[in-house]
């Protein structure tokens, strides 16, 4: 089955810097990828998604990059703010019409003022 891993459990950045959070997945047939943000005591909040027919997608201050060759996904946050402090998860849609999401373990982002 699919497995999803993150490169770093924690990331600490200075306010105003750019943040990059990485994720690796195992199944080359995975076709849908989502980044979620989870603040303490809350549910996962959708940030941005990307489908396998794309390699880059941009939102407001966030960019997701998908490298299918090495099965790698990254989330870039520009001009990181204290409100960005949270745990970030990547989630992958399993192949073959399954609706379930397989989550990575999460990277805790701390933004220092």
């Amino acid at each position, binding site marked *: 089955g699919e497995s999803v891993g993150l490169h770093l459990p924690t990331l600490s950045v200075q306010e105003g810097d750019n943040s990059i959070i990485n994720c690796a997945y195992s199944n080359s047939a995975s*076709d*849908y990828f*989502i980044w*979620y943000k989870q603040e303490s*005591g*809350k*549910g*996962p*909040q*959708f940030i941005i*998604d990307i*489908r396998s027919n794309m390699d880059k997608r941009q939102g407001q201050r966030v960019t997701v990059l998908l490298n299918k060759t090495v099965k790698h996904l990254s989330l870039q946050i520009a001009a990181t703010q204290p409100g960005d402090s949270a745990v970030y*998860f990547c*989630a992958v*849609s399993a192949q073959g*019409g*399954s*609706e*379930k*999401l*397989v*989550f*990575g*373990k*999460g990277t805790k982002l701390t933004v220092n003022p």
Partner: protein
Amino acid sequence: EPEVTQTPSHQVTQMGQEVILRCVPISNHLYFYWYRQILGQKVEFLVSFYNNEISEKSEIFDDQFSVERPDGSNFTLKIRSTKLEDSAMYFCASDLRGDTDTQYFGPGTRLTVL
């Protein structure tokens, strides 16, 4: 903006008791999910539900678990006889189209089994 809601926010129960966790998905969504997150661990899929039946379930979702959509708005998860290891955050999610559609999550119910 529409959102998924869940009640209660925190449920404390004794081992062996039954619990029902409640969710109100986003109103026009057709696919409903339960996930759980044990403290400090990954979010794990439990079950998906569409057209009034389970469409997929994980190995965690054993005979002690059941789901129901008792009316047009609620979606429930029942645990028949809770165990200590059922202690976790339980998240409900919903989406419109199922496969490769964005799932929106509720705030979760923290279940504590004593």
